[in-house]
């Protein structure tokens, strides 16, 4: 059920991390529309397929446009939206399976183009909607319905993947940090180019990582999550790689490329530089006259 449409009856499981992400996005959009007078109709939410993607139907408050398509194709759809409409703000909401497995091929090309979109990736380390199979971010050796002997593939490091692909803005956070997440999302939307906010968003039904992320002082369990130290320079690429390779979950802004020129700006500038004249169809046809 959503405010907009009481007939819509999808529900996340109690405690699902995605609730926090929803609240963070809502608050970022409200803030942008009140503080920056950004028109919410100029925001398009592009959703992946998975529990996470259903966020697009659940959004309360000011209603952006949405598109909820097929599994793994948020980025190319966003590419098409921005291609002729750089005036639109595109916000991707996707899961680890959708964005990093079947959709993983699209990260590199958009990073190289520096497409001006923000992707919020809800990483629960599992395929939620299809009932708990291993995803690229599932822990090594975890037993799931598709890994009866424990997962044998190395765990993927999404942060490292984004960095090497050339993503120009990268933040990592937790679904419980709603306020910080809202700020990071808004900051990412301000970044002129491809930005990713990667969120640890636990799946209470199939992969409940709340305890592991928080740790447990009593039982001597170190938390996986740790705040990015204040002295980290987000423009230092190798430092960001090092943070990404800790095997833990850094929380905060990892990387920001300062010289970021987004795809549509590159095109505009190049066209201006080259200054080719647009011929009409009639002129082109006339050029073919016998």
């Amino acid at each position, binding site marked *: 059920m*959503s405010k*907009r*449409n009481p*007939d*819509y009856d*999808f529900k996340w499981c109690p405690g699902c991390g995605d609730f926090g992400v929803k609240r963070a996005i809502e608050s970022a959009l409200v803030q942008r529309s009140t503080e920056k007078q950004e*028109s*919410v*109709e*100029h925001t*398009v939410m*592009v*959703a992946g397929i998975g529990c996470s993607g*259903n966020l*697009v*139907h659940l959004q309360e408050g000011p*209603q*952006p*446009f*949405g*598109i*909820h*398509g*097929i599994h793994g*194709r948020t980025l*190319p*759809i*966003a*590419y*098409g*939206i*921005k*291609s*002729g*409409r750089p*005036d*639109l703000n595109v916000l991707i909401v996707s899961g680890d399976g959708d964005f990093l497995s079947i959709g993983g*091929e*699209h990260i*590199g*090309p958009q990073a190289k183009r520096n497409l001006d979109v923000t992707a919020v990736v809800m990483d629960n380390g599992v395929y939620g909607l299809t009932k708990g199979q291993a995803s690229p971010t599932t822990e090594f050796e975890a037993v799931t319905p598709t890994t009866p002997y424990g997962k044998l593939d190395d765990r993927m490091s999404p942060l490292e993947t984004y960095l090497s692909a050339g993503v120009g803005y990268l933040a990592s956070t937790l679904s419980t940090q709603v306020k910080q997440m809202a700020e990071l999302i808004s900051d990412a939307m301000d970044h002129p180019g491809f930005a990713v906010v990667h969120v640890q968003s636990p799946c209470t039904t199939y992969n409940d990582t709340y305890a592991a992320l928080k740790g447990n002082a009593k039982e001597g369990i170190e938390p996986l999550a740790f705040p990015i130290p204040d002295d980290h320079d987000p423009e230092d690429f190798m430092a960001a790689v090092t943070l990404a390779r800790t095997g833990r979950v850094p929380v905060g802004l990892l990387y920001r490329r300062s010289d970021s020129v987004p795809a549509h700006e590159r*095109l*505009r500038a190049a*066209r201006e530089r080259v200054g*080719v*004249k*647009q*011929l009409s*169809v*009639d002129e*082109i*046809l*006339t050029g*073919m*006259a*016998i």
Partner: protein
Amino acid sequence: MSKNLVVRFAGEGGQGVVGGSEILAAAAAQVGYHVQTFATFPSQIKGGPAWGQASISTGPLLSGGDYLDILVALNRYAYDHNVQELREGGIVIYNSEDFELDEGGRAIGIAADQLARESGNPRAANMIVIGAVAELAGMPLSYIEQFVTKRFSRGRPGDEQIIEGNIKALHMGAEACKGSFSLGSPIEDPTPIEGERILIKGFEASSLGAIAAGLDTFIGYPISPATTMLTFMEANLHGDDYFVGQSSSEIESIAAILGAGYAGKRAMTSTAGPGLSLMGEGLGLAWMAEIPLVVANIQRGGPATGLPTKTEQSDLLVSLNPGHGDMSIPVIAPGTVEEAFWAAAAAVNWAERYQGPVILLSEASIAERAEDILKPDLSLVREERRTVSDGSVENRRYEGDGVSPFPVPGGPGAYVANGSEHDEPGDTTHLPDVHVRMTHRRFNKLDVLMDGDYESERTDAPVALMPWGGSKGSARGAYNEIIEEGEDLGWYYTMYLNPLPPALLDELRAKELVIVPELNYLGQFSRVLRSMGVNAQSITQYTGLPFKVGELKSSVREQMRAESGKLARV
């Protein structure tokens, strides 16, 4: 005197055989002949057996012609593999620097490279050969001189010298075979043609048709024989109104033009079979979420990587139903270079009008051939735009049982475009009655596309010939001959394969037999027609090459005989 002249330049890729045929055709077009080119080459960059052909005629050309009047063979392999198509009395010009021939006096050796060097322009071997061809065909050299002069008058220093050199080469070539012998009947002088004529290739025509109808965005991934549309767009669309991009795969292409269509743009991609096969899911999404877009699928030989540089008409079935679930994708298939222009314009307009995906189904033989046509009358091109939502139905984008106003991001009517089954605001649902209602809505929308026109002739005949796509020309050639021979045969033709114009379908259903020539094994279009209650039978060919008129004619006559035998027995 003859009305037609067919010249084939055969050799290796990289030897300029395609270029040679195109220069000859362009020159002939310029002095008033009708021309058509055709080329075939393997999937490699340099080398490999290749040939280009120029068909030249005093009347409109329906097809490239069945037999060669002149074969230019640049090597032994080219001679061996093309001479069977030389007509009786035809002439061979061969590269005497490469091999020797004794063809009963109908072969003449020319050392083109050496002559070119002697002419002072070592790159003029083509011109030497063209001079020889003109001489043997009885075509005044002045025709080609005219062309050379126009072509190289580019306002640059040295133009004059180049023109002179080329003309010299022409004459040297002519000289080299003067007095030897000539074609029995030289080609007639051209008769003046009314109107503004252009020489244009199929891929240019479909690109320009789409642009004329208002195309905004083009995103494609290279693949033969569809890359030319992508590079044409890159070269010709500039400025803020347009976006042209190379994608990283066809899966990206289809999703990207879907995104553009969603955002209000008229968007298109071009691809060929392997790419189309990757777009099934995306096309289903466009159907389901009701997003306008056009996929130009330029057919080559299939399946899989297949025959990348050959022509075939074997992607019809997958175009109609490219993915899972119930859908019926509109398909427009041009039959000539001229139609390629109008078909592309219609595809863009159809997509806007019914708010969904359209396939422009062309083929290698059309995309790659040059033809002289009358310059399309641009005042006849419509530029349709989807009805945009003014917000009066709020966010109920999928309201109603047919086409409804389209909310464009940035404007009113925020909704979720959804590829899952959805209710009116676009939210996911699993309710049986909503699935039924929305399925009806999607199919009802096809009703606004029932305006396709069609050709029909001799509609009283019980048996009719109905080609589709690029087989139109050869079929028309065969048809004309059959009619001339006094037989009764109907003729039907349309570019609008889905939905078929309803009146056409009615007519076809009333026939005893509809004969469908098509370049595939399965007889794809006749299967579709039979499934719609038409007694259709195919004549198939799957060689990677177009039909020859003569062969097609025999096959048609055979089917007609079999049918009348059947009728007699009833």
